[in-house]
């Protein structure tokens, strides 16, 4: 394998919860790496530790032990404020239920991440317009989220995730709430982003989605079960089958 820049890395990460007298070992010594330009999916049955892993990757939670490095920095012991900064600067969140703020327009929603870094102004507006264009919603900047379809809302969410030029996109079942046609469109958009060099980490339970990624990390009982490398070829073919429209 050629030398690649590691942008996110788990080193023997444990995450234990105490529930009453029991200790739940949600993650039990997970090590993995995300390189720049990666398209990685994380799969596993429910209870395998997917959500815990997502929360840790997104700096919404801290590991009980072990090290989580984002960029070249250990973030596993950072303060709440510092973690907020890491989320705001390095990570682009995409959620299953879109999670746009209902009372704000598309443009205002896109500006939210930069607002918390005091970067709202003419430049942020230009960037929002550019990204809205890129996801095909350049004419909808003044609309409220509820005036958009599910697929359109998810496009806005993807544009929002790109606003801060994150190290990687972190998607949680990004197509879980969409019908199959819209799902295919969103997955195509991810493919486009990936070919532009955007790093994507996606948690999913849908094999058809996972097959379009470069690699799939399988979790089982809080540990890494296996890491499967999909060749780009098979990924494309599999995606073609799923969407039923690509050769």
């Amino acid at each position, binding site marked *: 394998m050629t030398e690649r820049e590691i942008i996110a890395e788990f080193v023997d990460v444990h995450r234990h919860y105490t529930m009453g007298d029991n200790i739940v070992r949600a993650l039990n010594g997970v090590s993995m790496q995300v390189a720049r330009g990666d398209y990685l999916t994380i799969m596993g049955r429910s209870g395998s530790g997917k959500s815990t892993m997502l929360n840790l990757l997104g700096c919404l939670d801290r590991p009980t032990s072990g090290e989580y490095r984002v960029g070249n920095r250990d973030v596993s012991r950072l303060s709440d404020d510092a973690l907020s900064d890491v989320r705001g600067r390095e990570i682009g969140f995409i959620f299953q239920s879109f*999670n746009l703020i209902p009372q*704000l327009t598309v443009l205002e929603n896109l500006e939210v991440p930069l607002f918390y870094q005091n970067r709202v102004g003419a430049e942020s507006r230009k960037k929002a317009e550019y990204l809205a264009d890129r996801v095909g919603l350049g004419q909808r900047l003044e609309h409220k989220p509820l005036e958009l379809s599910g697929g359109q809302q998810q496009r806005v969410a993807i544009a929002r995730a790109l606003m801060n030029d994150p190290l990687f996109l972190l998607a949680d079942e990004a197509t879980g709430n969409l019908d199959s046609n819209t799902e295919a469109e969103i997955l195509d958009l991810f493919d486009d982003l990936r070919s532009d060099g955007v790093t994507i980490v996606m948690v999913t339970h849908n094999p058809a989605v996972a097959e379009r990624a470069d690699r799939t990390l399988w979790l089982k009982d809080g540990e890494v079960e296996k890491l499967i490398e999909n060749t780009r070829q098979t990924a494309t073919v599999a995606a073609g089958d799923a969407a039923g429209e690509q050769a």
Partner: protein
Amino acid sequence: MIQGSWRIVRLGLKSLMLHKLRSSLTTAGILFGVASVIAMLAVGEGAKIEALERFRDMGVTNLIARSKKPAESLSNSQQSAWMPIGYGLQFEEADLIAASLPDATVIRIREIKKNMQRGENFRSSIVVGTEADFLEVANMRVREGRWLSNVDNERLANVCVLGATLSRLLFPLENPMGQTILVGDDDRYRVVGVLAEQGRTAGAGSTPYDECMFIPINTSNRRFGVILTNRSGGSFSRERVELHEVKVKMPDSTTVPAGAKILRDLVERQHKDKNDVLVTVPLELLKQEEESKRMFNIVLAVIASISLLVGGIGIMNVMLATVTERTREIGIRRALGAKRKHIIQQFLVESGVLSALGGVVGVALGIVLPFLITIWFDQKTIILPHHVGLAFGISAAVGVVFGIYPAWRAANMDPVDALRHE
């Protein structure tokens, strides 16, 4: 920076507009609180100034000893109408008072109700017999002509000075100066002066000085005597009264308490059992009034605080509901990089905007209300700018203070739990 703050306020307004009715109702709580605080303070201030003016009219350096008919004599008078009832201050006492208070100016006053006639104009009012110093002690001014002099008194002159209102009533068209007025059946008095309008309630008993006629006290004694006959509504009574009132003007307000004590001692010696002389010290009344105003203000402040407290609780209640409803939004914002302070700021701005809006409208209403109170209830009101500022400031502070806990709760939510919230 300013642009950023404006943006925060604008977004806060936008969030509040999500629940227009709820926000307006919450705002109304503060609105009425602020309006009632301003209105109450305006009424309180108006009443205070009114009371101060009343006592100032009486003169804050003055002491007043006034004869009054003893209560038990009322029934006696009906049994023996021809036997005059004697009561009140006597000439000798006035001399004694003057001698005991050498630094003070002492004036004697007799008040006799008489019919007055000038041509076709007729009026029944009080003839005040008094002295040259009266003008200074009662703090009054002559508008035209002159005041009564010592010479008038010595010569028992038949001259009079008219109160402004009485002058208008008896001389609606002509200049009263030098004209004569018929008093009672056969006494005629030449007008030598007219007083400036007083507009005060203080006067001869319940009659304002504006409606009185003033003549030299010696003239009053000689013409009317000390036995006074009252005929009113078919009843008939006779009284023997030498002086109706003695006014004492002390040199300054610091000597008032000592002077009051001397005057009270002198009066008590003669009148303790009969209870027919009342000593009034305007300065004491003023102080009592100020004391009771202080209590009134404390009560007012407590009521105002309670109304704003209730408004504040309303805000807190709504903000807690808002925070719960928008848990997910809080999670989203945290995921997108918001720090705890950003969340606190967002909700504090919302509660602040809510109460400040109530404050602004409340101030407007609070300024209008006192005018209506003045028009409808004839109650003097005074709006002081610092009261308005105070009410508005408190309302804004209430919004922030009562917003702190909900905002703190919002900021301390676990982002993971908040995002999972349905």
